[in-house]
């Protein structure tokens, strides 16, 4: 076998080596907010764990540098990531003195660097393998399933992040529910309103420029300002419209956040509906007219199905964006994962920030992968763009 060097692999290998041998693996702190001390892999882990981590890391480095088949690279990257995930749990057990409930152990820069480098290796292998949408979703489910099993097994319970969670388990799930409700609910409302608006813009060109211009202008208002500005009209409605307060409309809280996300969501959905409908081939429309289809039949039977993948792309943009923006809702009392992020920033307790940020990123990432797979499945093969 001829040995050839993989350029990208050299970079990933260098990052992996630095993360494993030079940077601290875990941080130990005597309590929640004092500065921490770094511990290397050999200091932080029981000998067998340390040996196992170093073994997979070295194998991963060798496989990354050499030109090896994609499946093999993916396998070693996922395997090393799994070992890493279990090892950081073991580090917490090793470093925390018995009976000490104040001490905190959290992943340090070496761990994050290893995580990043190995994820890069996996992402590169996946990009080269070009798996089908179904396989991508299957891999995602396997990774999420693995995380769930580790969480339930209690292997990470000694970590600072999980200690923050343990003292807030109830609020965590309440805020998670609010976050998802804000992101999905505003998306649903924007889809219900945006698609008909898009169809209208397509049919009445004079309306198009004005409406898209207005929606564009809304996008330039910074999110925290839009959330804040909406407090006033919604507060007024709650006071003066009978029954509004009863269904949960209030000046502060979820209502202005919901409306703000709804307004931000409209532009991608309306614009993509317009672009999608404009891209329907003239022949298809003429053929439909020729066989005597009514306007509505043509819209429902021809135009809409052909424009669907483009509209779906708009929905994907909105969902990922909304999951991120919903964190801002916490600033106006709207709840969501942002509550932990901003509390954590306020208390300089970084594990609390992570408790809000990690689920947000995971949620956005999952939504992106799932919707990308759906879009690819919905797009006719010959229309697919040649990109990863």
């Amino acid at each position: 076998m001829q040995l050839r060097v993989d350029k990208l692999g050299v970079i990933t290998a260098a990052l992996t080596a630095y993360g494993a041998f030079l940077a601290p693996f875990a941080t130990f702190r005597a309590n929640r907010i004092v500065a921490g001390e770094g511990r290397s892999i050999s200091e932080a882990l029981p000998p067998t764990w340390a040996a196992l981590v170093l073994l997979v890391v070295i194998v991963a480095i060798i496989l990354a540098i050499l030109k090896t088949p994609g499946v093999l690279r993916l396998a070693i990257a996922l395997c090393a990531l799994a070992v890493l995930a279990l090892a950081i749990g073991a580090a917490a057990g090793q470093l925390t003195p018995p009976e000490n409930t104040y001490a905190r152990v959290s992943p340090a820069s070496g761990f994050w660097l290893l995580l990043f480098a190995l994820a890069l290796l996996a992402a590169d292998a996946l990009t080269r393998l070009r798996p089908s949408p179904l396989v991508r979703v299957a891999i995602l489910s396997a990774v999420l399933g693995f995380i769930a099993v580790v969480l339930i097994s209690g292997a990470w319970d000694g970590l600072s992040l999980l200690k923050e969670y343990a003292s807030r388990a109830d609020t965590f799930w309440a805020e998670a529910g609010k976050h998802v409700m804000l992101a999905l609910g505003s998306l649903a409302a924007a889809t219900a309103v945006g698609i008909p608006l898009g169809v209208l813009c397509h049919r009445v060109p004079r309306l198009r420029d004005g409406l898209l211009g207005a929606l564009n202008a809304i996008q330039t208002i910074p999110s925290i300002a839009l959330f804040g500005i909406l407090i006033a009209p919604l507060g007024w409605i709650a006071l003066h419209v009978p029954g509004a307060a009863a269904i949960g409309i209030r000046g502060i809280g979820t209502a202005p956040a919901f409306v703000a996300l709804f307004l931000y969501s409209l532009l991608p959905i309306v614009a993509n509906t317009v672009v999608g409908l404009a891209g329907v081939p003239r022949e298809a429309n003429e053929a439909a007219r020729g066989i005597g289809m009514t306007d509505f039949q043509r819209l429902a039977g021809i135009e809409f199905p052909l424009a669907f993948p483009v509209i779906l792309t708009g929905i994907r943009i909105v969902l990922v964006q909304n999951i991120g923006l919903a964190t801002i809702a916490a600033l106006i009392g709207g709840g969501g994962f942002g509550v932990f992020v901003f509390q954590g920033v306020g208390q300089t307790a970084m594990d609390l920030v992570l408790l809000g940020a990690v689920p947000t990123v995971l949620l956005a990432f999952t939504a992106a992968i799932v919707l990308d797979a759906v879009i690819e499945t919905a797009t006719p093969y010959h229309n697919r763009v040649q990109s990863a």
Partner: protein
Amino acid sequence: MLRLPNLIRLLAFAVLIAFLTQPQWFEPLLRPLVQQNAPAIYNQGSLLQLTLLHLRTVAIATAGATVVALALAILVTRPSGAEFLPLSRSLVNIGQTFPPVAVLALAVPIFGFGEKPTLIALFLYGLLPIFENALTGLTTLPPAIMEAARGTGMTGRQRLMKVELPLAMPVILAGIRLSVVISLATATIGSTVAARTLGEVIIAGLQSNNLAFVVQGGLIVAVLAVLIHDGLQAAERRLGSRVGR
């Protein structure tokens, strides 16, 4: 010469400058938004100074993002860097799923409070649209022109500087414009980690239940974004008509 949209822009610019230098002139307009004794104009610092700091933060972050993103895009579109092209495309896709607040909050433990984490978050977030557009611009050049450039005996470097970059420039500028507009709005979030931006005005308003603060902070950023967006777009059009794309 002066058409209506440009007249409106000029007017918006004049009002913005007037508001930033003489905010008290606008006090009666904002007065109805606040309770009896509350101040209607931001009184914890100069609006002009905050605006300049805001613009400075965005400018530094965008300049850095432009240099790095452009260098990376050039690198992965050369034959020697072709191995990195597929992965860099997926990285851009993955990167865009990270919410700005999360990037900002996670930069705090590494860089501390203040301007630094905001700069880092804006830089990282600004990289993506510029890199994506530069890639599109550099990979969708008309093959006939590239062939002609090669045929005239230009070296790789000459082709890049004299043919590829000028032709891709309008698309690259569109990426920079997108990045600037996103950064202008995102920079306000930086004030949650004590960066001095116009977000300070909005957050002060949220904390003291002062709608006038929220509105003036939000509107200054929005008007800035629209004006800068239109200005860059005009520059792109001028360039675009020159390279005939």
